[in-house]
């Protein structure tokens, strides 16, 4: 029976203090009755293996004890979906950008690698920082939701809600008029602004003169044309505020061209001449080269953002052309 006593002791350890004795007395009585019954059936005392089988059938001590405990949780079923949603947002909007920037630095910035010794050390340092960030973010969100769960259990604040305050029906293919108006205004401002920059002689003052390279003329014209196209598309969207396959494709094309032009701008050593009479020419040359170099170094970041923008545009085309797309009630299905 030593095995039985050991089992009871193990169960007792996990039981709530105020009920320990009572539960153990009852459990002990039940097990002894079961053993006695079995012994009567067999006409002999049970050996250790048979007692072991009975205890094993009864279950692991921790599990047996747990059944006597009330259900406990840090974050309950009401808040858990919100908690999971917030964790996803944190991962997408905080950790993912961090990882992208870190990977860009690791791949394209020799100074970043040098500051950590070598490539492997930089990777290790970044990896450990990522873990610290991820665990801290997870911990903070969990802590906040644990506090909310306690508050919810006491005040039931989530039970007070008004159906009238539910968000309006969402149609991902609808284009907000405010977005189209914003786009029109933005492109208009761009045209107005770059019309002053048509000449490669960007600044021509006694104290400073900045001349851009000849490619600026082509870039300027292309940007102007692109802004006009974007304005036309925004105007079209304003009149018919639903994405169609054609317009979503046009958006992909204009964004793609804009992205390519921007990359070209960064890589084309655009600052051709810089004259600052108050500074020695050698230093001015250094400043000019530095400006061109930094623009060229920003290219990987521009590439990453470009990929994201084009990814979003492509997803929009897929969504619009999908057969099972969602239509809000009352919205016409065929929109050109």
């Amino acid at each position: 029976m030593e095995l039985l006593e050991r089992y009871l002791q193990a169960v007792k350890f996990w039981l709530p203090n105020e009920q320990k004795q009572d539960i153990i007395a009852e459990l002990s009585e039940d097990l002894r009755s079961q053993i006695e019954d079995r012994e009567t059936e067999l006409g002999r005392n049970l050996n250790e293996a048979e007692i072991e089988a009975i205890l094993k059938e009864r279950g692991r001590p921790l599990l047996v004890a747990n059944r006597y405990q009330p259900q406990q949780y840090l974050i309950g079923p009401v808040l858990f979906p919100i908690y999971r949603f917030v964790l996803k947002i944190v991962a997408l909007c905080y950790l993912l950008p961090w990882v992208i920037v870190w990977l860009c630095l690791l791949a394209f910035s020799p100074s970043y690698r040098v500051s950590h010794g070598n490539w492997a050390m930089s990777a290790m340092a970044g990896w450990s920082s990522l873990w610290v960030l991820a665990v801290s973010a997870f911990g903070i969100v969990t802590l906040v939701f644990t506090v909310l769960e306690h508050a919810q259990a006491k005040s039931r604040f989530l039970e007070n809600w008004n159906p009238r305050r539910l968000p309006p029906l969402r149609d991902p293919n609808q284009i907000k008029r405010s977005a189209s108006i914003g786009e029109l205004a933005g492109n208009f401002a761009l045209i107005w602004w770059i019309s002053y920059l048509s000449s490669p002689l960007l600044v021509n003052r006694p104290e400073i003169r900045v001349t851009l390279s000849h490619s600026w003329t082509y870039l300027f014209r292309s940007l102007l044309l692109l802004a006009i196209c974007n304005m036309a598309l925004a105007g079209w969207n304003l009149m018919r505020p639903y994405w169609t396959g054609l317009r979503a494709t046009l958006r992909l094309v204009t964004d793609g061209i804009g992205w390519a032009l921007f990359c070209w701008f960064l890589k084309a050593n655009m600052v051709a001449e810089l004259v600052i009479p108050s500074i020695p020419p050698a230093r001015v040359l250094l400043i000019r080269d530095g400006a061109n170099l930094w623009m060229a170094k920003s290219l990987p970041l521009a590439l990453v953002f470009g990929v994201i923008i084009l990814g979003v545009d492509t997803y929009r085309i897929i969504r619009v052309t999908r057969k099972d797309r969602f239509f809000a009630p009352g919205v016409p299905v065929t929109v050109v």
Partner: protein
Amino acid sequence: MSPESFENLRLELRRGCLVVAVLAALREEQYGYTLRKALAEHGIDIDEGTLYPLLRRLESQGLLSSEWREQDKRNKRFYRLSHDGELILKQLVAEWRAMDEALNGILDGNLKQGEEKQDEKKQDAKEKSHGATRAVPASR
């Protein structure tokens, strides 16, 4: 459907019934071990890990009363339905019977509908086969 899914649904279905079974069985005073055996004899198998916490919960709700007593030279905890437990049991049994009747109605209705559909299908099949045998000479 996996056997695991069926098992989960079966347990869910049984969960509410166990309370009624335990309350009904405790109209006569019993201790845990004999109660479990009595339920098993009636076809309701309930493991100790479920039964004892359930007894405690029902007692804390005032539906059962219990006392420790010596029997066969051993201390045993005897449970019995309390006055409140009797009232609740009556209500639960009424609820159970109403639900049983409603469920039977639904099941019988569906069975009848299913049988009617089967008959319709058979009839359709017969008509089609007749139509086909008639159509063969006509097509020639």
